[in-house]
């Protein structure tokens, strides 16, 4: 029977190295992807997601199981990323497809399972997605984090509130403002 994340975290608190390795394997991709979504820098995302695991190891005792493990861990990770971004405020024009990060020139559409669509339509859609994600990059850090947790991690509002350490009402405001901004930028 597979052990739950919460049980594994309890074991990490007792310095069970195997439990820690298992948690890392379970969450490494999600952690790296979420960090990258917030930071848009592969090296920083790698570094900060690893830092989140180290914090997890060091603070596993303080995980009181009042929240789900994933919520608790995302909170560590998102706070690290937001703090990092605050300290290294680099509001550079970040593009969704960052050529410098060697994404093998794959476009967003190429990564989507849509084999029978009209190429011309695809091109238009690809451009739209680019514009949309570029607009996401321009949102405030809190709005963006709330939106990414919603879209990417599919967290319910209550959990997003827990991760961002704010009320559900605040999360709703963040999401509403984020989507209103995107709607306006997309000319809708």
């Amino acid at each position, binding site marked *: 029977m597979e052990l739950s994340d919460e049980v594994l975290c309890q074991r990490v608190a007792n310095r069970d190295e195997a439990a820690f390795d298992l948690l890392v394997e379970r969450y490494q991709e999600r952690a790296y992807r979420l960090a990258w979504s917030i930071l848009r820098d592969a090296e920083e995302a790698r570094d900060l997601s690893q*830092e989140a695991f180290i914090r997890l190891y060091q603070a596993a005792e303080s995980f009181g199981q009042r929240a789900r493990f994933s919520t608790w861990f995302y909170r560590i990770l998102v706070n690290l990323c937001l703090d990092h971004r605050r300290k290294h405020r680099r509001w550079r024009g970040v593009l969704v497809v960052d050529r410098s990060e060697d994404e093998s020139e794959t476009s967003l559409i190429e990564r989507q399972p849509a084999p029978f669509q009209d190429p011309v339509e695809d091109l238009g859609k690809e451009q739209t997605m680019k514009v949309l994600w570029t607009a996401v990059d321009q949102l405030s850090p809190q709005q963006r984090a709330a939106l990414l947790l919603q879209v990417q991690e599919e967290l319910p509002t209550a959990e997003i509130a827990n991760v961002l350490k704010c009320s559900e009402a605040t999360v709703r405001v963040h999401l509403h403002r984020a989507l209103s901004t995107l709607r306006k930028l997309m000319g809708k």
Partner: protein
Amino acid sequence: MWAPRHPDTQLIAYLKGELADRDHRRVASHVSTCAECTRALEDFRKILQDLATSVPQPPEIQWGAYRAELRQKLEGRRQPLWGWQWLLRPLPVALSAAVAGALLILAFPSGTYRPPVTADLAFLEETAVASRLDLLQQYSMLERLDLWEDLDVIQHLDTIQPTRKS
């Protein structure tokens, strides 16, 4: 004319099906009669859908190397003993005291240690003298010394002493 209040911040929760029954019914009722909210709701739904189906993927990394690097970082951070517990061990304490003592002996070998005169101290001294300059200038002897110094005579006091008339 009374204008209905739009349930702006509840629209996303409504879309996600997170509202309590009563709120859900209220928003549904409002949306059914408000063209603006209907449009907003449809646009939000479309944007969320577009975002969810086009989440950009980060550059791929080797997970084995990632975990090895993480393990290395963790080992680097890990202390053999934490905080105050370290103090309970007599051997490390004794060793530390011995090293500290040896360093103290090496630092003050003759027991007559004088701190080096730094530029800061020299500056302070000059400032102190300057603050009392008016007082010092009241002494005629000092005035003469100043004069001699100005005339570059002070270096030759020994040679001019015999010629002076007191």
